[in-house]
């Protein structure tokens, strides 16, 4: 017999098997999820959830699909959080800290409370990446924030009203487009294709009978 634990979904008590995640426990309890459920694998950030264990003052944040239930867990899902997403033209933005001053000036009001970092469901150093963004160190901001799933829990805890995931998104795009080194072999290949350099070769392959293609495939050289 599987062991049962008591959990409280939005304050209401349910008995569920202890081996379930918060998400599967909700379904076990009878919820047919529409909101608050996306990839179910920890990549999409749809299932941000906050909880407290009875008798413990600390508030925890997690992804419901990646977290096991515990006895006496008080659970509230956060399927949507009103992050501020500023729009911009990626072709026209300044590639220095002035872009942050223009689009997300509130990051300079960070009071250093570190609530964002403490609440991150991905255990990222959120306050640190905001500090990098403030200084226009986009490469570092991009690296530090890379695993962000944009669940928004950090922003829900921020007294300065910062939308951390959107700040990081901007930094990563700037880094990917402008700061990362260009790729010569990619540019060359695109030119060669546009020039039609491979047309004849591919056309010849398309005309080959299946038996010849099989032979070609089965005997092809494989790079070590």
């Amino acid at each position, binding site marked *: 017999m599987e062991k049962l634990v008591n959990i409280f979904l939005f304050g209401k008590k349910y008995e569920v098997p202890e081996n379930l995640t918060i998400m599967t426990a909700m379904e076990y309890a009878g919820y047919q999820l529409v909101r608050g459920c996306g990839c179910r694998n920890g990549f999409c950030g749809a299932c941000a959830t906050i909880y407290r264990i009875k008798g413990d003052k600390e508030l925890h944040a997690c992804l419901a699909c990646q977290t096991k239930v515990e006895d006496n867990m008080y659970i509230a899902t956060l399927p949507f959080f009103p992050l501020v*997403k500023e729009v911009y033209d990626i072709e026209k933005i300044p590639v220095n800290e002035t872009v942050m001053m223009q689009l997300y000036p509130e990051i300079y009001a960070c009071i250093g409370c570190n609530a964002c970092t403490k609440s991150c469901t991905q255990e990222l150093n959120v306050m640190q990446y905001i500090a990098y963004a403030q200084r226009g160190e986009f490469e570092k901001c991009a690296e530090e924030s890379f695993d962000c799933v944009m669940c928004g829990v950090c922003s829900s805890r921020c007294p300065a009203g910062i939308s951390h995931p959107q700040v990081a998104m901007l930094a990563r795009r700037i880094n990917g487009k402008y700061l990362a080194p260009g790729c010569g072999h990619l540019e060359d290949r695109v030119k060669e294709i546009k020039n039609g350099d491979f047309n004849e070769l591919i056309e010849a392959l398309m005309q080959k009978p299946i038996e010849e293609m*099989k032979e070609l495939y089965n005997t092809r050289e494989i790079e070590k």
Partner: protein
Amino acid sequence: MYSEKFQQSIAAVEAAREKNIALEPERMTAKQKEDLLAEFHPDYKQNEFSVLKAGPNKGEKVPHELAEMLQAHSRITKDCVDLSNPDYETDVLIIGGGGAGSSAAIEAHEAGADVMIVTKLRIGDANTMMAEGGIQAADKPNDSPAIHFVDAFGGGHFAAKKELLRKLVCDAPEAIQWLSNLGVEFDKDAEGTMVTTHGGGTSRKRMHAAKDYSGAEIMRTLRDEVLNRGIPVVDFTAAIELILDKDGKAAGAVLMNMETKELLVAKAKTVIIATGGAGRMHYQGFPTSNHYGATADGLVLGYRVGAKLLYAETLQYHPTGVAHPEQIFGALVTEKVRSLGAKLVNVNGEVFMHPLETRDVAAASIIRECSARGNGVETGNGLGVWLDTPMIEKIGGEGTIEKRIPAMMRMFEKYGIDIRKEPILVYPTLHYQNGGLDITEDGMTTNVENLFVAGEAVGGIHGRNRLMGNSLLDIIVFGRSAGIHAAAKAKDTTVGELTLDHIDAFEAELEAVGIKTDAVSPKLLPDYTRKN
């Protein structure tokens, strides 16, 4: 940390590790692969398929669960909505907010069309977001689109539509460049050279990645760009029926608010189906690596208005789904783990195959090891084999796992398993819908005018099996292309009077062939609530 019952087998894996790292397992011959697939691949289990009795693919077989949805009733009758008074009017209507839909939206918008996305969950709730391993493109000097073509054509059992595959491989480098220019962060070295690896069945190292968040990095960037362009995204709203005009051209869709169930009408000059895959149909009872909404909706929508399916009977079972712990049962363990050097090992610590065979062969080989050969590890929740992840650190140096596959490390860490030190248990999981709607090179269905398809809902690009990294590629290449062509087609389209007459026509056909069912479709979401 694994419990006691696994320790004996783990000890065998550890004892053999050095020897297994040095071992270069032979690749199977064509004949060996054929025999293996016929006996052990789920696609070859005849009793798991039904023959369709109605619709454009009548007489062909598809999985039981898909047959039920394709031959189900509509969720509405034609009188449920007022077609003369649409709630939305646009040039290009895109159904689905994943990588294909978003790429299509950006290109259609770039071409000057009015475009709108409807999606039953949120933009970005899609298999794209979950693709970990990477995206193929033949952009290295020792590689070429022709070599890429041969790899993919052979890997797909010589069944791909050649003109679609040509487009896939030839447009691949430009797709990478397009993504780079949007700000996607690919793994590069200090000189800008792409860090590329092998995938199963590739003959050149052409797998580009963004750590093991490749799809997430692409998806969040595309989403950001869609929002920057102000493209309307109507979320939590499913398309439940296509609308045609009197001439039989696709001209919109009936939409349903997923929360309030309100019905709405969207009128459009062209429609793009970008609804993705079908893992949540759980064919043959398999777990899935797919996102919550992967229920083959687009195939159903298209089929009911007469669009043909191609290869709908072929599914991809990713060889390495999580077999343990049970909380993440079926979740994807990226193929990149094997690209980086981890090998598949049985209960006795023996390597039983080359780790980089194509996915269908690898999946069948694992199933054989666990069934006929009796060399599986009992997990308490079924069987599995070891994927010896500590090999990666021994080959690539300490820190390789954290640098190259952080998501995998995090996923197992939550359950107390350190993949740098301990191997992990895997078993095939339902991963990808190889088949889908049949399209021409410009992305339009072969027999319904103005109905375009992109992404996993398309059939024929890959043939009967798909190589790792060719799906992220196809959603970008065919997503962009569908957006461009749908926008162009919208310019010369005049929409006639809207109609839902196809619903009655399909009902009449079901009745004529004697199908009696209570099922309605599309499915929209799986039902995981507990049944007492």
